[in-house]
């Protein structure tokens, strides 16, 4: 039998403050997003009830927005790969996964910029085009926030801050990232599929 007397005291359980705080932040971000998309749905329904055309026929194409959707789906795997790698203390894989996720974010930003320019919409033209900008713009703001979060996590990971017992920040970045992916799935359905 192994004597346990004299063993050092266990490490103090660290509070999961960052993860809890990120959960609250995600809830607030989603409520903001639901408010914006809720207004979009109501305005579109009102316009259609009045017999007006919402977006001009054929302007919004499904293809590019679908690329964004599938890229984001892919990024779910890379961000969860980062969480799994940091929990396994596999730092190289964690760096690669975080870097890939950030690059996916930059690619999505680029793709969305292309879509917005491709439509030729103007904010002041009418309510539909204004809301197109507003909903996509809201998503872009949250996407930038998520990329910044991942970038900070990457830098801190590179500085050796995280490990198997301290993966909270990576989990928090993953939670926020997945929330942003969920937001795009709504934007994709509302604006690009059902138009």
């Amino acid at each position, binding site marked *: 039998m192994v004597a346990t007397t004299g063993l050092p005291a266990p490490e103090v359980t660290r509070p999961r403050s960052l993860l*809890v705080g990120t959960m609250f932040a995600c809830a607030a971000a989603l409520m903001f997003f639901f408010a*914006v998309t809720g207004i979009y749905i109501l305005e579109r329904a009102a316009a259609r009830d009045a017999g007006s055309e919402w977006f001009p026929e054929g302007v919004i194409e499904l293809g590019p927005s679908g690329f964004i959707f599938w890229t984001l789906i892919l990024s779910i795997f890379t961000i969860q790969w980062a969480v799994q790698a940091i929990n396994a203390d596999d730092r190289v894989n964690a760096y690669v996964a975080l870097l890939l996720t950030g690059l996916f974010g930059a690619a999505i930003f680029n793709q969305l910029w292309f879509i917005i320019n491709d439509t030729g919409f103007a904010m002041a033209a009418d309510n539909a085009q204004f809301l197109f900008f507003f909903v996509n713009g809201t998503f872009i703001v949250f996407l930038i926030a998520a990329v910044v979060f991942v970038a900070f996590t990457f830098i801190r990971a590179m500085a050796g801050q995280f490990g198997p017992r301290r993966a909270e920040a990576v989990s928090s970045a993953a939670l926020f990232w997945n929330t942003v992916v969920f937001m795009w799935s709504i934007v994709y359905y509302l604006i690009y599929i059902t138009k």
Partner: protein
Amino acid sequence: MTMTDSPPVAETALAAASPRVVGLFDALTTTDHKRIGRLWLRSGVLALLAATIVGVVLTVENSNSSADDLFGGVNNYFQYFSAYRFGLVLLVVAPLFVGLATVVVPMQVGATNIAFPRAAHGAVWLFMIGAGITVVSVVAGGGWGALDGVSSGERDAIALTLVGTALVIVSLLAASICIATTVVSLRTAGMNLLRVPLFAWSMLVATSVWLLTLPIALGNLALIYFDLRGGPGEYGVAEGSSDIYTQLGWLVEQPQVYAFAIPVLGVLGQIAPVVARRRHAQHTAAVILIGLFGLLSVGGWSQPAFQGANYDEKFIFIVFGLFAVLPVLGSIGAATDTIAKRSDDGDGAGISGLLSVYSLGAIGAGLLLLAGTVAGLARVIQPWDLGGRTTTTAVMNLVLYGAVVAAIAGIWFWAPKISGRHLPVMMGRLVLFDLVAGAVLLGAADFVSGFLEAPAFGYQVAGSTAPLMAVPSDQNLIEVMNVVAAVGAVLIVLGVLGVVAALAKAARSDESVEDNPYGGQTLEWTTSSPPSSGNFSEPPERVVSEAPLLDTVSENGEEA
């Protein structure tokens, strides 16, 4: 046996007697939750003074339709009318409770600091910047809409108001995340959610509701701002409209206005057992009732953008209005039950506790909140058709001044922990009596006027007796009620001036204060007065009930 359930201890040293650095540098760099909380409280009290002065001018304008136009036009009146309402919610009540919670909640849950102290510190400065921008923009002709046309200068000022309001909301959201996270993840060992002190619990409920509802207002603000700055002009700043106020008015109306008064029940539940010198008689019930009140105060769905103009005729609105009374009534009943069972020990301490400033304030705040929810109940009774009338103002004033009274009672109660000083007792009694009396007059007058068909927006064009938005059935009685409301508003300003004087007097005092002068039962009373950096000289012992200090006394055999 190996101890595995360790209390969460921050990396900062416990109770390190940090050198006291004061001044602007300290205010700009501190991460101590007590100092951050004091910044919130000072901002809230300053805004309270400004808002109540605006309230007096508005009620005086309403009370005498034949007098000169104090505002110089309907547009200016509308700007200050809306500024008073939004200001009372966003610049007064929310910051007062955030400030109180930032100081007290970490100590109540046994934490050494608030969660994310840098974010909490950034939030208070963001709030001050946002509040400053809002006030300056309103003075410059901005506000939440314009009724008599919008000049280009006013358009810019309105845009500035929207930016200021958005910054204020963002700061409140950031502070809410810090407070809610503190309660959820920094609780000491053994403190499950049913053992969290009622004030901390009420702040968790309140900040959760704010986090779910204020972003909706923020989204709407952003929509209006971008529409104003280059959109098609669909969302509020059409020439001569009150659309912005209409879209955001749900923030100051039931059920959302109740969300800003949730901590009233926490203050009441926290103070009642101290007055009674025993455990809270219905602690679990109080926890449930506060949670229920939080659920019934979620009001983001009630904005006209989602529900249309007749949102107040919908079933859910009526249900929320009817049932909101019950948790308030239940919480007051639980507090009354606790106080009724108080132990006096024959030394009269129980009676003196009952007559203490904080006790009178907590009771007054609870009754004002009850009156507000009862007025809200009357407002949803469809045959009375009180929507758009001064009844809505009565609900707002009663609820929000109930919240102000609770916050001030809390400041008196926790003064040893906030500033290390006692606040003057007699002055406190006078101030709270004054505030409660003023709020009752203000609320009762508006409530009665509502039944006389007085419109909530009571501006009358100078020289005309015709009201702008409705035709009251009894103009003379309404004018009497407006005078009563003006007297109430003046009493409130006097009360607020008394608060400022009391705080100034206490700041000059150098008397030493006991660590636990009132027989408090929760962990903040184990700290020194004022608490040192890190709050506790050693980690609190494992908590086994909602009143850990009574457990300590019981174990020592000094209390049955």
